[in-house]
């Protein structure tokens, strides 16, 4: 008690020493290295999959989990053994595992994934993006055919706000004379289609209010309550329709298309790829919104939703 400063300093030194010794031992940013270096990289639930077992992952996003479950059940119907690794956070968590081969199938979104691997990418059309993505992916990974369904960021306003300021396109935001706040996940701040992109493409100033539910109910609530004027909501989100929101058009292609694109490892052979392709081919924008609606409004589990949909499509 007599020498608080000295004690704190010692403690700081101890903490720093801990950090330093740890830092020296490995390259922290080598995400692939760290994951491949650890046999337990597949997470807490299981050991290494057998060669004939396909590991299917999903983002920490309910809609992504449904798509993963679609692939999983379709593969199981064809006699494959599937191990599920769902809800594995965001890209920085799961991509190292995908790259290391611990996960074989991962439903992804084309535009954002391309930007993750190549921040300078210039492609804007779905086809160009797909081609660029095939190039950008690390060795051992390949994208399968994209679905028609997209689930991309979109700027939304309430019907009332749109009518008050006669808004249909992002460009119309220039005519709004009040300060604009947009609710979105925090990474939106640095995305090319975020505030800076919006300023560059349309000359509109916005500030971000981070809400980490990926355009979920809280984001929508913030918009409807009038706490924010704009909300970044994924285009496949059923609440756009149920809350009667207006998605602002993006004539400058500021936001890259996010077609649902499975990323697979070499463990996925042509036959297995064909099964996934077949599912993906039936996955239209409307179908995806429908699936999401079942999850959010009927609170159905991904397994039930997938089972019903595959049966309805004659796929299982």
């Amino acid at each position, binding site marked *: 008690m007599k020498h608080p400063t000295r004690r704190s300093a*010692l403690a700081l030194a*101890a903490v720093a020493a801990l950090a330093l010794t740890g830092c020296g031992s490995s390259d922290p940013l080598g995400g692939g290295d760290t994951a491949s270096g650890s046999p337990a990289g597949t997470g807490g639930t299981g050991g290494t999959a057998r060669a004939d077992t396909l590991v299917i992952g999903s983002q920490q996003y309910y809609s992504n989990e449904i798509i993963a479950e679609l692939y999983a059940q379709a593969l199981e119907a064809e006699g494959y053994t599937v191990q599920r690794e769902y*809800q594995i*956070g965001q890209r920085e968590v799961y991509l190292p595992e995908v790259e290391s081969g611990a996960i074989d199938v991962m439903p992804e979104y084309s535009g954002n994934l391309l930007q993750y691997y190549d921040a300078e990418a210039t492609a804007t059309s779905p086809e160009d993006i797909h081609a660029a993505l095939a190039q950008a992916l690390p060795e051992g990974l390949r994208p399968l055919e994209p679905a028609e369904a997209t689930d991309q960021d979109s700027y939304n306003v309430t019907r009332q706000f749109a009518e008050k300021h006669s808004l249909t396109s992002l460009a119309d935001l220039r005519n709004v004379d009040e300060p604009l706040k947009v609710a979105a996940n925090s990474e939106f701040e640095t995305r090319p289609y975020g505030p800076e992109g919006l300023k560059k493409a349309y000359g509109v100033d916005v500030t971000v209010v981070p809400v*980490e539910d*990926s355009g979920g109910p809280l984001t929508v609530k913030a918009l409807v309550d009038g706490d924010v004027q704009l909300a970044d909501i994924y285009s496949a989100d059923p609440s756009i329709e149920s809350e009667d929101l207006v998605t602002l058009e993006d004539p400058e292609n500021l936001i890259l298309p996010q077609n649902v694109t499975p990323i697979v490892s070499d463990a996925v052979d042509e036959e297995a790829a064909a099964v996934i392709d077949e599912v993906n081919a039936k996955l239209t924008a409307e179908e995806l919104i429908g699936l999401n609606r079942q999850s959010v409004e009927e609170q159905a589990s991904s397994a039930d939703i997938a089972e019903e949909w595959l049966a309805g499509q004659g796929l299982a």
Partner: protein
Amino acid sequence: MNWVLDNLPLIADRTWAHLATSLPAILAALLVSVPLGWLAHRYRALNGPVLTGAGLMYAIPSLPLFIVLPVLIGTGVRDAVNVMVALTLYGVALLVRSVADGLDGVPPEARSAAVALGYPPLRRFLTVDLPLAGPVILSGLRVVAVSTVSLCTVGAVLGIPSLGLLFTDGFQRGIMAEILTGILLTAVLALVLDRLLVALGRLAMPWTRKAAGVDA
């Protein structure tokens, strides 16, 4: 409550993952804290640094620790080892002080009596000091158990399986029942563990039981 009934396997799965992560961490925290606490108790010079260091550890936000730790120890973010190490660190942060306090509180008479009786040092530590410090250590361990179980949920933000996934998923889908289930189960797990520790403590330290039926 429909959501609960429809998702029992999922809930069981998450509960299991939660226990599988938090229980080893609690145990590891105890095993690490005893020698550390002893050092802090035995060597005055180490007392300040160890206890303040431990206190500071608790001030590190859990979320970045979950991310930074794999960078430091070379595991994957979702690696069970990563989560356990992080939770263990927090547990140690709380428990070292209890161990040191408990050992400090051992009556010197008891200790010198043991010395006088000719106990060798390690045996004396294990059979006299540690049991007498037991009640204080136990109360620290109870806090650690409850807070570890509660803290374990934070990993869900990174996709680390636990009951916390019910929060993140329910949050995105707007299912209150899912979040509530997660909260209640976490609390129940913590409290059950707490009662269990109390019961274990009574078994292991019969002398701490309140004397029953003694006239006033």
